[in-house]
């Protein structure tokens, strides 16, 4: 039945096309705007879908030489990488305890972590801003490194707890019988088996930290210390004039790190997203 299966494939593509177009069009549009020369970009008589005057790199050149954009990229990467490492470490320990060890209040603790995971950052940014001021961390990257794990750890713990419960107990118990401590069994037996889950948790952690907006916006005011999300959105817009070419180029380049990770680890992201993701 070659014909009917071909028809089915055609229907699949046709029905998927509007969703794909809706999802990726803004990025195509960013790319187009970032490569067009200003004269054409702001010429209303032109067809906006065409690039007639030739492409230009001037918007990217401006971005990398006349703005703090490279610094923002560096800040974001440093903060996201550090907080991911710390959060995954804490979450592995916590998740192991919740998934494997029997102790009083285990269920209550699991519920507590889950509840914290649901508290949105928009409820916490004001009191945290004051807390950061008290600890003299305002306007430093430390304010972000300290606060991001508070939303990353509950999520990673939640994800890893679910993952650890899928690992059979036998291997670990024979290690314990052989004289391994709990910490030893976790390190040498459970961790190697849990690698896919840990990679997923780390990828999600990094993506969340890299995308974070309201804490960075609230805690950091110096241009050079901003992360890429707030830097591009707040500092590239000067007065009423929008440098649309550079703005679109900046948004696009800033999105690249997570998009590259995403395309390399697509299946991990899908697995993590269905394990209960953080944004919806």
């Amino acid at each position, binding site marked *: 039945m070659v014909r009917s299966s071909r028809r089915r494939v055609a229907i699949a*593509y046709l029905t998927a096309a509007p969703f794909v177009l809706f999802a990726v069009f*803004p990025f195509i549009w960013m790319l187009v705007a970032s490569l067009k020369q200003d004269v054409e970009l702001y010429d209303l008589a032109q067809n906006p879908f065409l690039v007639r005057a030739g492409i230009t790199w001037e918007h990217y050149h401006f971005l990398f030489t006349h703005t703090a954009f490279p610094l923002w990229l560096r800040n974001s990467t440093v903060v996201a990488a550090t907080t991911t490492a710390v959060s995954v470490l804490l979450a592995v320990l916590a998740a192991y305890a919740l998934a494997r060890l029997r102790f009083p209040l285990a269920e209550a603790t699991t519920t507590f972590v889950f509840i914290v995971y649901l508290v949105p950052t928009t409820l916490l940014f004001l009191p945290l801003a004051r807390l950061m001021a008290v600890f003299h961390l305002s306007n430093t990257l430390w304010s972000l490194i300290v606060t991001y794990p*508070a939303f990353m750890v509950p999520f990673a713990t939640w994800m890893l707890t679910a993952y650890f419960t899928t690992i059979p107990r036998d291997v670990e118990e024979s290690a314990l019988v052989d004289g391994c401590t709990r910490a030893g069994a976790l390190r040498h037996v459970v961790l190697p088996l849990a690698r896919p889950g840990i990679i997923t948790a780390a990828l999600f952690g990094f993506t969340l930290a890299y995308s974070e907006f309201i804490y960075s916006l609230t805690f950091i005011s110096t241009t050079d210390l901003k992360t890429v999300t707030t830097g591009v*959105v707040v500092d590239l817009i000067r007065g009423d004039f929008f440098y649309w070419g550079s703005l679109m180029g900046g948004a696009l380049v800033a999105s690249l790190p997570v998009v590259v990770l995403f395309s390399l680890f697509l299946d991990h992201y899908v697995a993590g997203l269905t394990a209960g993701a953080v944004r919806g």
Partner: protein
Amino acid sequence: MISREEILHQRTTAYGVRLRPETVTAWSFLLPTLLLLLVLAVYPLGYAFFLSMTDAQVSGPAHFVGLQNFVRLLRTAIFTLTLSNTIGYTLGAVAAKLVLGLVLALVLAQRAPGMRWIRGAVLIPWVVPTSLAMLAWTWMFDSTYSVINWVLMHLGAIAEPIAWLGTPRLARLAVVLVNVWSGLPFFGINFLAGLVTIPQELYEAGTVDGAGPIVRFRHITLPLLRPVLATVLLFSVVMTSSDFATVFVLTKGGPQNTTQILATLAYKLGLATGDLGNAAAISLYLFPILAISTYVQVRLMRRVWQW
């Protein structure tokens, strides 16, 4: 079975209570996480409640005022507008994501070569930082250079360019549309994951009994998808009602506060004017939604555990 640590800790007692070694290990593994969450989540939340009951400004002493802020806000026009905007924004966006998410899941469940990459492409709005993607939408909705206007004008649908973000009704539509854009992948992929767990035999049995595709969807797909639907829905209600970046970048709450939502108003009051007491009270109006959603989710989770 007695492990080495069990022997080592056999006589561990604290205040006359014998602690099992496993308990000691568990709490030592949990301690860093619990400390972190207590200091950076529980304490700030408590502090937000405290601030909301004071007249605190950025500097100067704070006086306890009880529930005055909450009560006075309800008599303030800008706040009641913001509250109803938030409800409308949440209901509109969640409903649209629910319906479109189901359609998307059914679309993605089809078999075709390259479907994995189609799923990947559809997920991109979820992966990319919302605030950055919002810049592209701001450009697409620009009053002068909007590509949407260009297309509509060339299709003959409109005669004049539309000020999408400058017209109250359209600005509201725009922020909902963009929230749907960034939230839809989460719905679609989760529904898809639920969809593939439904046994194929049920559909075959349905077909044998003469059920058409619509009947099969209503009586097989929807009921079996209910647990996933409930989780995703509750989750999204919390995340959508507490959204910040979408509105902050796209409209800053304008025009004339018609797209102002709780988080953006709290930010504006707390940081621009330094009125921390009222700002905290505004953001805490999100708390009932959070509490109800959390309560229901925890109950749903318990049921899964027992099962």
